[in-house]
């Protein structure tokens, strides 16, 4: 999301907050650019609203968006990520990717270097990691399978067995390669 865009034209940077009546008849505050404010006929009088007010509203809009962006695996939202400054699991990076790229650039460079996007250039994991990952997934599925059978949850057990076969196939393929 771009910083503080006008909520009417979505093109220019918002410079003030105006009060509008929405379709349900409620008063709502929206941030607008100078051009749209002129069109609305609210120029000078409302401009006295201080900047803090605008940012408060922008933050609220962003907060809503951040809370909705959520990692399905660990349930961390982007809002929580910003609050704690920490990720919840390896999947967070895929879910948050778009938002992360500018965030990391700001965090991981000095001001004068901030032109290019920055990505990993260092060491990479080898095939060994992929294999050990498969191993540990298989191990986990076997435990789940045993549990499902013990609980006589046969439908679940069948599903797990399918996944287990898939993983074992993958592992074999990997070994042949």
């Amino acid at each position, binding site marked *: 999301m771009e910083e503080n865009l006008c909520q009417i034209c979505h093109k220019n940077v918002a410079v003030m907050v105006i009060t509008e009546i929405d379709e349900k008849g409620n008063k709502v505050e929206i941030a607008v650019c100078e051009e749209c404010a002129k069109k609305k006929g609210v120029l000078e009088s409302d401009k006295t609203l201080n900047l803090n007010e605008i940012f408060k509203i922008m933050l609220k809009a962003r907060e809503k968006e951040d809370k909705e962006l959520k990692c399905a695996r660990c349930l961390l939202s982007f809002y929580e990520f910003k609050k704690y400054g920490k*990720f919840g699991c390896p999947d967070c990076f895929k879910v948050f990717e778009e938002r992360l790229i500018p965030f990391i650039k700001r965090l*991981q460079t000095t001001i004068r270097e901030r032109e290019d996007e920055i990505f*990993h250039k260092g060491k*990479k994991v080898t095939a*060994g990691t992929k294999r050990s990952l498969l191993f540990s997934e298989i191990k986990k599925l076997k435990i789940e399978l045993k549990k499902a059978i013990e609980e006589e949850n046969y439908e679940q057990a069948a599903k797990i067995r399918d996944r287990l076969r898939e993983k074992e196939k993958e592992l074999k393929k990997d070994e042949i390669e």
Partner: protein
Amino acid sequence: MKLSKNLVPGFLREISEDSDVCISSRIRFARNLENHLFLLKASLKEQEEIIEEVKEVITQLNHFQFYSDDKLNEIFLNYLLERYLVSPDFVLSKNKKGVFIDSEEKISIMINEEDHLRLQVLGGGFSLDEVFVKINEVDDKLEKELPYAFSEKFGFLTACPTNLGTGMRVSVMLHLPGLILTNEMEKVIKTTQNIGFLIRGIYGEGTKTIGSYFQIANQFTIGMKEEEILANTKNLIREVINYERKARDYLLKNLKNEIEDRIWRAYGILTHAKLLTSEEAINLLSTLRLGICLKIIKKISLLTINILTILVKRANLMYYLKNENLTEEERDYKRAALIRKVLKGKGEEEDI
């Protein structure tokens, strides 16, 4: 009295040509496992599983001593912290945690600190190249057995975005009394921060530092190869080492009497005081260290200072004395006695 050098971790026993300024070198890698939630989200049960999985692999690889919750009481955790083998966050963490330490006390692998794994290798003096080779050896071995969380774009996936990419933090511990005494330190701190590096006092909090010991480390971890981060950090450290040496030369040339007075006063207190807090002891030993480097003090070695600087710390002192129940005053008394015993008679007669 002569102290056994086995009393301190291996990296503090190694004295090299840069040991006059650079006490030790350290590199750490942050790593996480793909098959587990990070610590923000992992349940205590999952944290235990992580420890078990890692333990299985590490015990096959190297001869490490493993300590987990049942052994990690408050004093032992602080003992390890004072020896730089675990981090302050590890000590404070409420996670199920464990740490592997090699017999030389140069390698430690913390489990469930901020990340699933924190590998660190330490070396004496300015030895980052050797440390880098060694940590990669350990990392490569572990990588073959553990499913590291990794992405092509973001590199090694870490709990905190400040460690993304390489997950690598390169740091050294420097002794910079010359820059402090010549009032150049503030300038060094500002410049270091402006070019994207971290610098902080080793002891004490905020701006109040004890003993003129500082740590310099890279701030950025992504967008560069490990070798680049290493080279950039090394260049900066080399500059700071040279700057400190220049400051010491200046002091010897222009303020010889004042500096000698300061050093002999430190020696006087250390060899006669009956009560010493750890803070005061570290401060005075720091001044003595400067005296050795300036060849004003001749019969005390840097190794002795390294050993004493560890032994005077609260938990290490109690471990050394094999008494974990000493009160603060008892500790101050025994600390002073230990220092007196070690340093006595090692001053140099001055020409009249």
